[in-house]
């Protein structure tokens, strides 16, 4: 079918580069717009929470950041797996482009988690399953990125970090479960972060809006980064859409 051929065409970096370039502004604009609406809903429409007062408003960034951090790790691992299976360069580039954004969201989830925990639990840090998993997730993002930067050969760096990303995907659920188990043993803080069913519908709407906004932001940033990666990796042909003709002339004149 014709659509199938179209998709295949974009699996090559040369074709993907301009496509990504066209998509980035759209994703970025919608992300900013949704973030604006989400923040308005979060601060001006959503009511004050009974128990937590205004502090609960942190969840409008915390929950989306935490979701994105986990989700992006899985997406990164999927790209890594596709890259290993099909030996596709674009997949490895995508995996490379996702890692920094995922790590940033993990860091933000930890930071905002601490900001939420201090007024709510009275402690900056609690060893509950969610926070611990996030922390380990941050280490794994760091591992993926460090492994990549310490290997000079691009092909080997791609594949080695892919293997580690895939191993990590098995690890995170096990950690989540094990810390939960450990907490029941130590009768520690088994506090739930999500306000769950008690949440007013406007709160939920604001949170979902922010999540979608973060999602679109991630897509825009990752596409921009994958374009950078493509330029960095290809020494010869330029897919640079900034005046390629001039470069051509200079080369010929030389």
């Amino acid at each position: 079918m014709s659509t199938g051929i179209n998709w295949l065409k974009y699996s090559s970096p040369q074709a993907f580069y301009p496509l990504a370039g066209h998509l980035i502004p759209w994703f970025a604009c919608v992300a900013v717009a949704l973030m604006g609406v989400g923040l308005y809903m979060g601060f001006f429409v959503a009511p004050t929470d009974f128990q937590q007062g205004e502090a609960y408003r942190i969840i409008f960034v915390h929950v989306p950041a935490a979701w994105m951090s986990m989700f992006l790790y899985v997406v990164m691992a999927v790209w890594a797996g596709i890259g290993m299976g099909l030996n596709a360069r674009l997949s490895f580039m995508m995996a490379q482009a996702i890692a920094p954004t995922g790590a940033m969201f993990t860091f933000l989830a930890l930071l905002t988690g601490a900001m939420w925990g201090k007024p709510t639990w009275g402690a900056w840090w609690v060893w509950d399953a969610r926070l611990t998993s996030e922390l380990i997730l941050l280490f794994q993002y760091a591992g993926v990125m460090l492994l990549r930067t310490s290997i000079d050969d691009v092909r080997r760096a791609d594949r080695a970090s892919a293997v580690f990303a895939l191993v990590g995907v098995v690890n995170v659920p096990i950690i989540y479960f094990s810390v939960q188990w450990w907490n029941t043993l130590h009768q520690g803080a088994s506090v739930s972060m999500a306000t769950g069913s008690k949440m007013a519908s406007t709160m939920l709407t604001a949170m979902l809006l922010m999540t979608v906004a973060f999602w679109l932001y991630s897509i825009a940033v990752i596409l921009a980064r994958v374009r950078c990666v493509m330029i960095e990796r290809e020494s010869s042909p330029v897919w640079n859409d900034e005046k390629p003709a001039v470069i051509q002339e200079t080369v010929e004149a030389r």
Partner: protein
Amino acid sequence: MQWGSASEFFAMGGYGLYVWTSFVATALCMVWEVLALWRRRAAACAEQRAALLGGTDETTA
């Protein structure tokens, strides 16, 4: 509208420090990421242009 005044809004019922730190940190991280990408792209493009003009003839096998 639930905020009586701007100061009430910024106080966030006494939790202003926590709430605003979270939101500002998130915003800063995002802005920083976008700026870093911008610079990375500029650097990569410049390097590529330099490589093209400098003419590395290694590619001819």
